């Protein structure tokens, strides 16, 4: 189990000098990700050559139970990737995700999760718990807007991330309104939006990943690969927008 994580890390390490793109096998970012505004606060930090502090807030997929180890979760992968792309900068990515957490709960905990010293970027992943429970879409969007405003006032750059995609879950859960809410909130506030749902759907439809009918062992391997791709894609996007 650990071997696959090591192999993955080794692969990433080898890819590092060539790293202008995400790890091999993830595909390019292409047209799916809309253009991001510059992450101004992070940019200033990076220019001064100090540190880059990121906090990831989210639910089960960010916590990454399904990964083989904590090093294989997407926040951890993001940290590794950014550290390579921004040599000389001390990159920290703190994972504050909790299982099955609603955005409303994340909003309440926001101050605690961020801590006293403000991070430069907060990646806010949400939407799954809301879709599963059929929460009112308008209230969800209002929660997102409120959270974004709070973070902006504290001088923190925000990146919104939506839910995962696989054909089975998407067949029995109505994700669309919640995905739209995340995208709309990002557009309304003119902040960065990482469309994980659309990216994963693109992967599935191009056969890059098979997410169903996997054995236990295969499941963790696939989870690792998916999280690695998410982490490195985010790394490329963030690096691009802080330079």
């Amino acid at each position: 189990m650990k071997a696959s994580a090591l192999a993955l890390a080794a692969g990433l390490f080898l890819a590092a000098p060539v790293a202008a793109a995400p790890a091999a096998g993830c595909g390019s970012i292409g047209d799916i990700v809309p253009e991001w505004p510059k992450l101004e606060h992070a940019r200033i930090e990076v220019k001064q050559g100090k540190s880059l502090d990121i906090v990831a807030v989210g639910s089960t997929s960010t916590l990454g139970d399904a990964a083989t180890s904590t090093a294989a979760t997407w926040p951890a992968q993001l940290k590794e990737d950014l550290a390579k792309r921004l040599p000389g900068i001390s990159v920290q990515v703190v994972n504050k995700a909790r299982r099955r957490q609603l955005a409303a709960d994340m909003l309440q905990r926001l101050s605690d999760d961020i801590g006293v010293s403000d991070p430069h970027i907060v990646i806010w992943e949400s939407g799954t718990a809301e879709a599963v429970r059929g929460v009112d879409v308008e209230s969800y969007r209002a929660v997102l807007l409120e959270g974004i405003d709070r973070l902006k006032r504290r001088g923190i750059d925000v990146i919104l991330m939506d839910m995962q995609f696989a054909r089975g879950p998407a067949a029995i859960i109505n994700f669309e309104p919640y995905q739209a809410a995340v995208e709309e909130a990002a557009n309304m506030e003119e902040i960065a939006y990482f469309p994980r749902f659309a990216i994963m759907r693109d992967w599935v439809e191009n056969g890059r990943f098979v997410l169903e009918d996997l054995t236990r062992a295969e499941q963790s391997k696939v989870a690792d690969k998916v999280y690695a791709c998410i982490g490195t894609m985010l790394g490329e996007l963030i690096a691009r927008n802080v330079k």
Partner: protein
Amino acid sequence: METQRAPMRDRRLDFFRGLALFFIFIDHVPNNLYSSFTLHAVAFFDAAEVFVFISGYTVALVFGRTFLGGDVVFGTAQVLRRCWTLYVAHVFLLIGFIAEVSWTVQRFEGSMFAEEMGVTHFLDEPHLTLIEGLLLRFQPEFMDILPLYIVLLLGFIPFALIFRVSLWGGLALSLLIYLAVPVFGITLHTYPEGSWFFNPFAWQLLFNLGAAMALASLRHKQLLPRPAALFWTAIVLVGVMIVVKVSWLLNSFHLPVKPILLRVLAPLADKTDLDVLRLIEFLAVAYIIATLVAPDADWLRSRAARPVMLCGENSLHIFCLGIFLAFLGHLALVEIAGSIAAQTMVIVAGIAIMCGVAYMMNWFKERSGRKPVRKPAEASLQGTGA
């Protein structure tokens, strides 16, 4: 939408309802490319509004005569019989959905989708789920529009009684209930938590507006004035709204005013409570079409329009069929292939099947004598499908 002395079928109803049924089918096949080409891409409203309004109109047209004539008991019985058909279709879908979920959970259990599989926890209490489903309170994906229609149909019974006495009185009551939604937050709850995706207290306004117009036409009255100023206001309004909506769709369309517009307008376009923007834009469009298209326009009788017309004529059954086909289509896209080619095949096959069944139902009616065989110049009142 007035009737002349001899009752003539308003063919526009059938056509636009048939079209709405196609759009509803397309919109209910999730993750499909073609839903970006339906109404919702360019308008704040979608096929649901079209369907509910026209259904209100047709329900009143079909059953209104009985109620207006005084035979309240028989009218009620007719409406309840319609509700029963819809209810049976809903239960059928319920079984299909439970089967799909049970199968899905096996393939995704204990994986990176553990949280998503939380939606299957109702399987832990199947007896509760079944009862809640039978009570229309269990409304997972696909299962939200049929319960709405059932409740609206049931609601027609008391409203018909009120409309008998006073059309405007009934409309005023309907408007009051609609306004009570944002003020008091009234809605119906689903199991295990949340509320109905289509809030019946809000959507009844659209249904009753259609019903009132139909009842007015039955009494040979025209409910709505037709001054040119109103028409042109509607055109301008709709034009502006289309531009705004399309600008939201295009990611590359960067205007400084765009986020502001989004922030102000998006909360007014919520589907669940039939927010103002949706309602107003739909009514404006309906007004424009009613003014521009005559009830008996020639193109409505063409061969090309015929499949759409027949679907609209048998709308109750085609509606149920469409929802069921969307469910099957989605299953196919999930299990077999999800490519654009596959999506196209599913959409085309679904619409073909809906039209095929509509033709078949029409043939039955003609053969059993319930409907005169169609000659090009004939207008017929039978064969309505409320």
